[in-house]
């Protein structure tokens, strides 16, 4: 699947395209198929996102899993600071990245 991601303009937070908006949780991301570039242009023009780009991801029972480790780190947070990730209560969250 293809997933659209970028950063929230005022906060810089990593965000994912949900089909009708943006979420900070990759579990909410939806397949943009071949529409990623056009959605990105429109959303960037509306200042809903900065630096948008499309990535490859696989479909899993827990939601999309980015193909590249860099985007998995972006999706979770720094593996060396579990307390600062999106899943601070899950001690095994980092294994999803690796």
């Amino acid at each position, binding site marked *: 699947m293809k997933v659209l991601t970028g*950063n929230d*303009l*005022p*906060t*810089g*937070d*990593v965000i994912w395209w949900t089909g009708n908006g943006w979420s900070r949780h990759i579990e909410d991301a939806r397949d943009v198929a071949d529409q990623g570039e056009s959605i990105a242009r429109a959303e*960037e023009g509306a*200042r809903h996102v*900065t*630096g948008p780009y499309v990535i490859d991801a696989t479909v899993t029972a827990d939601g999309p899993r980015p*193909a*590249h*480790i*860099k985007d998995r*780190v*972006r999706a979770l*947070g*720094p*593996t*060396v*600071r579990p307390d*600062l990730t999106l899943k601070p209560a899950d001690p095994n969250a980092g294994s999803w990245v690796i």
Partner: protein
Amino acid sequence: MYKYDQYDQSIVDARVEEFRDQVKRRLAGQITEDQFKPLRLMNGLYLQLHAYMLRVAVPYGTLDGRQMRMLGHIARKYDRGYGHFTTRQNIQYNWIKLSEAPDILAELATVEMHAIQTSGNCIRNISSDQFAGAAADEVADPRVWAELLRQWSTFHPEFSYLPRKFKIAVIAADEDRAAMRLHDIGIQLVQRDGVLGGRIFVGGGMGRTPMIAPEIKDFITADDLLSYVEACLRVYNRYGRRDNIYKARIKILIHELGADEYRRQVEEEFVAVKALGLDPPKAEFDRITKMFAPPTFATFGPQADTAPNPAFDAWRAQNTVAHKQPGYAIVTISLKPTGGIPGDATADQIDLMADLAERFSFNELRVTHAQNIVLPHVAVSDLHDVWTALDAAGLAPANIDLISDIIACPGLDYCSLANARSIPVAQKIATRFADPERQRDLGELKLKISGCINACGHHHAGHIGILGVDKKGTENYQLLLGGSGAEDASLARITGPGFSEDGIVDAVETVTNVYLDKREAGERFLDTYRRLGMDPFKEALYG
């Protein structure tokens, strides 16, 4: 320490308001990201893996307690309670909001700090010896010259759009504690026949094409130094390649021209520059020099030995060095606890270091390129009190220059350029070698880790270097041996095929075992490697 005059303060204040307006226009959609990006980078604001990252300049690594406390305040108020001290003697914050960045810069300006020229193709923060003003072996305080260069390079109109970023280091001792020859320009202040001047090295650097700077001028008098540096930059600005980012650094120009031809062009340019009257008048030089006058040291009589305390004694032996003033010591605070993140400090720890500087070090601190903090002027009689306070805050690892005193870039945990994570590897190695006795037995061993070829973790200059790469989507780590950023500068060589994350920890242990087995009396790891060459290490690693 240098104190801003009205000109310094006004240009920094004006820059804050200019950036506030730029951010406002960006958030209002009046300028695009393509238009805004170079503007935010000129103010040290990057967009990194998780958020905006702000890099704050610490000129030549020197700051006072008030400034340090401000860094803690920013970590607490605008970030997530911590900051990361870098190999450029700066500090970075990883979780900055664009909408708050102007307020941060305004707060920094109140303590004579900023983020100007911490990014972009300009002259970056001038780096220097972290022991400047305290070291017994210096011929002058290099910060006077670093400050002069800071003023000259700030908003220098001719050098604001260089072919590529440009880094300058100034030292004033034969012992190189600033990796001077791995800078675009390295200056070593020296005395010749009673005259102060500088040796000028140009064209060093790390990154994808590491080079040790050749000596371009064996002596330029202090009166001509600034003009000579300007001439070095002019030749680069004129002929440096702008067509290929990977060949744009000055080291490539000098490599392609040859040092002799580059030197000839600089000498020619110097004649033209010198006529412009760029070098500072004596009154201005004296004004700056006065601000770096040594503090008023006390005179101590014979001091009683303190009661033995193994932990304190180990820290004192490893983390302090002799001061030029009898009765004082230079303290290096390690930001490398076992299993910690190299260079990170919490807001509370930053506040504590500010307090200790004010109470025990004439209100001075230094950031080191090895990502530690220095209290440069501590009375020997105060060392136990300093250690006690540091120990209570987790800031007393006794490991300076030992294997766990690792330089590591932020790597893939934070950096959008990285190919692999650096910090977890540093944590695993430090944990593997956690036994203090084992570390001390290994002796001086500088281990440096980068998460990509840009080499922010200085892996080329590590006695042991590690480079993280992306191998078909998986993190892989190359091992390098034999580098040095010191006065015996050398570039590390790759041992062979890379290793997994756990494999690289084993590989480090393997090469240290070779060292322990083969070393001769008094040899450091680096010395043994240089005597034996790569073969015995490769044999142990790969069979």
